């Protein structure tokens, strides 16, 4: 601010681009992981996997889980888990299908209702986690079962079955559940939108700082004037919202809402975040990392079919990737910390 000379010490080391600083970025591990996994399946899967069919198949998967992995990753950075997303996805699908399909209300009412369900579940999660000392893992497992039960009960009560059909109008369908070119699900673009918003929130806005502080040392953050409880509740509401959004997109795409079927999102979203360099104990992680982790996960998930491997091999690869990710997360963190002590 004052003089260029005073600016120098802070600037020289930050503006310069070097392999060293790139390697120390938290995303480095996930980028390497993605490249390795992609090349592996590109060799096995051949031209089809590298062409549009391959890209669309793994991007569709990535978009679905990716929208949820973003806020789940944010919660993990702040030191919390959200298991309840596995129940919010079907709950929002069923809500949307019941409101707009069964009762014939306008699509916007169904969408609004479904998103409200997600926000409400997130709010309840957040309130219980901040007001009691129960770990979020347990709180959100409990809430997951409660929401699952409510969803099933409601569907059976109103519709008498565990699936509710809904045929959206063409405009809603094209915005939320269509395949562009017959291959690329429109939710890929929604995912990009979510990425942009979350990137701004975590890395550009000042509030992002607070999210890291929550996971680093919540007590000190509170002393420094960070509204920790409010922030945590908001983060849980974000993940509820994102899970509800995916539920809506599913209903629009498949024109039917299933009471069960959200469970894979629980572990998949956490895995995407961890493969993307989010540290399980909180305090570190990045949006780019979570996106790369999601892409890696999706490539393995779909690459298996293109490579004509036994699907069980895919599970083994994902398991191994997860372990490798946790190990490299640790060593990259050590590298990042060593930066300060070894520089001089």
């Amino acid at each position, binding site marked *: *601010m004052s003089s260029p000379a005073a600016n120098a*010490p802070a600037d020289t080391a930050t503006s310069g681009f070097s392999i060293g600083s790139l390697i120390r970025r938290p995303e480095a591990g996930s980028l390497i992981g993605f490249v390795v996994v992609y090349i592996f399946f590109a060799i096995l899967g051949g031209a089809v996997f590298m062409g549009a069919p391959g890209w669309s198949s793994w991007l569709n998967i990535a978009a679905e889980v990716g929208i949820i992995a973003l806020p789940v990753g944010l919660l993990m950075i702040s030191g919390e888990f959200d298991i309840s997303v596995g129940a919010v996805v079907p709950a929002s699908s069923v809500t949307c299908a019941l409101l707009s399909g069964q009762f014939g209300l306008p699509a916007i009412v169904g969408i609004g209702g479904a998103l409200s369900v997600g926000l409400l579940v997130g709010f309840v999660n957040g309130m219980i986690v901040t007001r009691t000392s129960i770990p979020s893992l347990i709180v959100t497992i409990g809430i997951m079962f409660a929401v699952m039960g409510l969803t099933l009960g409601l569907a059976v009560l109103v519709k008498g079955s565990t699936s509710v059909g809904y045929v959206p109008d063409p405009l809603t369908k094209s915005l939320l559940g269509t395949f562009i070119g017959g291959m690329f699900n429109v939710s890929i673009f929604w995912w990009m939108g979510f990425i942009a918003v979350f990137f701004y929130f975590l890395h550009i806005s000042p509030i992002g700082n*607070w999210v890291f502080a929550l996971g680093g040392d919540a007590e*000190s953050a509170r002393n420094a004037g960070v509204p920790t409880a409010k922030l945590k509740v908001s983060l849980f509401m974000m993940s509820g919202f994102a899970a509800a959004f995916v539920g809506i997109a599913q209903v629009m795409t498949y024109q039917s809402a299933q009471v069960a079927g959200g469970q894979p999102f629980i572990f998949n979203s956490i895995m995407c975040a961890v493969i993307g360099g989010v540290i399980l104990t909180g305090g570190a992680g990045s949006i780019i990392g979570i996106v790369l982790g999601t892409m890696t996960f999706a490539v393995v998930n779909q690459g298996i079919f293109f490579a004509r491997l036994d699907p069980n091999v895919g599970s083994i690869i994902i398991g191994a990737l997860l372990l490798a990710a946790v190990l490299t997360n640790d060593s990259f963190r050590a590298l990042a910390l060593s930066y300060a002590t070894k520089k001089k």
Partner: protein
Amino acid sequence: MSDKKVVLELKNVDKSFGPIDVLHEISLKVREGEVLCLLGDNGAGKSTLIKTLAGVHNATRGEILVDGEPVIFSGPRDAQDRGIATVHQFGGTYPLMSVGRNFFMGQEPTKGFGPFKVYDRKKANKIAVEEVQKMGITRIDDGDRLVGGLSGGERQSLAIARAVYFGARVLILDEPTAALGVKQAAHVLRIVNEAKKRGLAVIFITHQVMHAMTVGDHFAVLIRGAIAADFRKGEKTREEITDLMAGGQNMADLEQEIEGYMEAHDGHPPKVEPAE
């Protein structure tokens, strides 16, 4: 005593939790540009006293005066707004975050337009590095470094520099040297002196008499929640202070007693009777 201005004063402050009296009739004056060393063994009530000063607890009886005016803090934030900052052992720093982000936690500098605020990393890093260097820590020259890579002393210094930058007038340091090695502790003591030179009132809590004697102008020894001694620099020797902290028992006597016992019992220290 001293002609320096009294910033913070305690008058006959009592603090009890239910039926348990933790602090009893504490009267203290904290002056600007002076270091008050609060000495005492574990359980003497040091933590309760600083929490009362920092607005975490309210006094049960008695008065706290800031600039001569009686105040009742509504919480830690209120005390901070009045310029009373507490720095704990690890300084409230976040190991996996950068120096700049640590420094401005909760008060991030922003740029940008309207609702789209942008965290101003350059400005934060620059100010953080400048302020820390002013405090004499020249090894920190890059605001993007992670705090976890700094030494314990540097982390303390960062936290102190932060408190000073955000307008602290009274700095409460809770055992800042307890977990540090000799060199690191010297580091922190230098920073304490620097803060004092800048006219801050420092309350330095420790049970290391050597550290206290290095920087202290004024000493208060706390025993079982009461002030057992209140004296100024040079009025007592190190041995006298240590004896005071040990509850008035002469350290030399204690040493002799233990040695005598060990000689009579094949070099074994005296057996401590377990509590019931």
